[in-house]
């Protein structure tokens, strides 16, 4: 692939600052994600990675700075509007609709593009729309190998499948940018390898751009085109996997300074 400067940026963060009271969780973060890229955001716990995601998806409004999505400033937009624009996400501690079936979990996300209103939906005048949503849900579940589980209650699935379902649900909103918050958390090496292939596959299949937070270095180094490293809210490094692996500052951030040895 060509260097990222030549592709149009899907996402751009310009000196984003997020403060809570006196604490600066994200400090002057600037980054860009090009179309079709897989970019990783790494850093020790508490570095402000999830906060950065929350700034992108509208859960937090940045204290200063701007987030641009396909050139459009996201300031002031609420999370549902941002999802409608084409950014989908998963959550660090899986947030499924626990008591609903696998099928319904995905079906709910399909409603985003439905053309109906509460009257037509109640009086079943939207049969066509409903049938379309159900067909699309079925297709998506089949593509993700989840169709056999469609009637299971979401919370009853094993952990790995819950992660897969959460990603499937995010895909149902037809995003162009997918944010994954620690997709491999709690997975064993084999599952992580499967996930690695899976991420590349969905990127190609759905023409996605992927921006992910991840701790599993194997996964990150294998598939990311570029990596941003965050520590104490500040970006300390940026580059290709090789650059990052050899960056002394990154190694220090991860291994800790020897002051308390």
């Amino acid at each position: 692939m060509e260097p990222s400067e030549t592709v149009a940026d899907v996402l751009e963060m310009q000196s984003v600052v997020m403060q809570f009271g006196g604490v600066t969780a994200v400090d002057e973060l600037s980054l860009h994600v090009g179309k079709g890229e897989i970019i990783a955001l790494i850093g020790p716990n508490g570095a402000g990675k999830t906060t950065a995601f929350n700034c992108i998806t509208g859960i937090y409004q940045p204290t200063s700075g701007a987030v641009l999505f396909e050139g459009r400033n996201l300031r002031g937009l609420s999370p549902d509007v941002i999802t409608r624009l084409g950014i989908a996400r998963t959550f660090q501690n899986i947030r499924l609709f626990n008591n609903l079936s696998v099928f319904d979990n995905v079906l709910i996300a399909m409603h985003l593009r439905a053309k109906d209103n509460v009257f037509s939906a109640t009086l079943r005048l939207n049969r066509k729309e409903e049938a379309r949503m159900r067909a699309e849900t079925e297709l998506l579940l089949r593509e993700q190998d989840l169709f056999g589980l469609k009637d299971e209650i979401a919370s009853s699935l094993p952990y790995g499948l819950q992660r897969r379902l959460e990603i499937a649900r995010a895909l149902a909103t037809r995003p162009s940018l997918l944010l994954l918050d620690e997709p491999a958390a709690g997975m064993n090496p084999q599952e992580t390898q499967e996930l690695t292939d899976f991420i590349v596959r969905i990127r190609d299949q759905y023409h996605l751009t992927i921006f992910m937070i991840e701790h599993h270095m194997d996964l990150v180094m294998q598939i990311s085109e570029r990596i941003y490293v965050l520590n104490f809210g500040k970006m300390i490094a940026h580059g290709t996997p090789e650059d990052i692996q050899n960056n002394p500052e990154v190694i220090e951030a991860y291994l800790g300074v020897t002051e308390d040895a």
Partner: protein
Amino acid sequence: MDQSFHAMGERRRNIVLSLCLAGLLLACCGYLQANKYEYNYAISIIERSLIYAVVAVSMNLVNGFTGLFSLGQAGFMAIGAYVTAILTIPTANRPSVYYISGIHPWIENLHAPALLALILGGLAAAACAALIGIPVLRLKSDYLAIATLGFAEIIRALIAAPMMDRITNGSYGLKSIPGFSSIFQVLALAACSIGLMVLLINSSYGRMFKAIREDEIAAEAMGINLFRTKELSFVISSFFAGISGGMLAMFMRSIDSKTFQVSLTYDILLIVVIGGIGSVTGSVLGAFLVTAGREILRFFDEPFFLGGVQVPLFRPGFRMVIFSLLLMIVVLFYSKGLMGTNEFSWNSICRFFGRKERKKQEGRVPHDGAK
């Protein structure tokens, strides 16, 4: 192939069973209606249960399916009841109803047929709900409970306020409200209202309500506008609470502000909790159980003699103590209520009996073997 054939057979069986049940119920009601002087009491219990079922399902829509805690049912019912009453009291009777302070010229000749009046009552309740919802549902819905409870009290205070005398007849209440002519009217109204709510709950909007109940943040991340969807659920719920209030007015024939005290909301909450928060059939079942229970347990309020000695506990008010204890026991020990979040279905009934049947057979086999 075989499976789908089986499912079709099941569906046919379910339709047949449902029709049989509906026919049976209609026949029962027909019988009661035909002998209405004899079964006056039973009819009034059934009518009240049906009305409570409507408001219980409406409360469940917002509390059980959308996960918001609203306690304004009595207030919305009061609005529906007063609108219905004001619009339906025959113009000829109005001077005698408003004989103390007179009637306001605006409403003197305002008259509407009962069905229209009920719908207008529901719309008025819905409009009030929309207004309360704007500030409260935009924020943490924690305060919804207090805001709605407070609203219900304000409505009551306004109805009884002296400046409203010429509209609501103040604390004297409204009388000569035309009632229902037969139990079938109540049945039809209740069935329509509950049916519409069930359709809503099972529609794409109902799914969004449930998504919000399950996880607000995830729902928002799926493109659901939290405020608009919550407001929708709350407004629709209040609309049907208003309708049931209007029905209650027609059922009671005379109303005043005391009819709609907070304890009415608590009664409905009891019904919802007993039936199962998140189950429509549970709420309907609960409405019948609680309403009938109230009548049956009336003896708690009367002096009770056991072998010529008066048992000291039995005196007025004891029944309500029992009822509140019951609510506590259900909340603490049977938090799922009768139905949990399940709905009545023939399949589950058949499965239940099927299991019993199988158990019986299984029980027999080793016994035979021992022989």
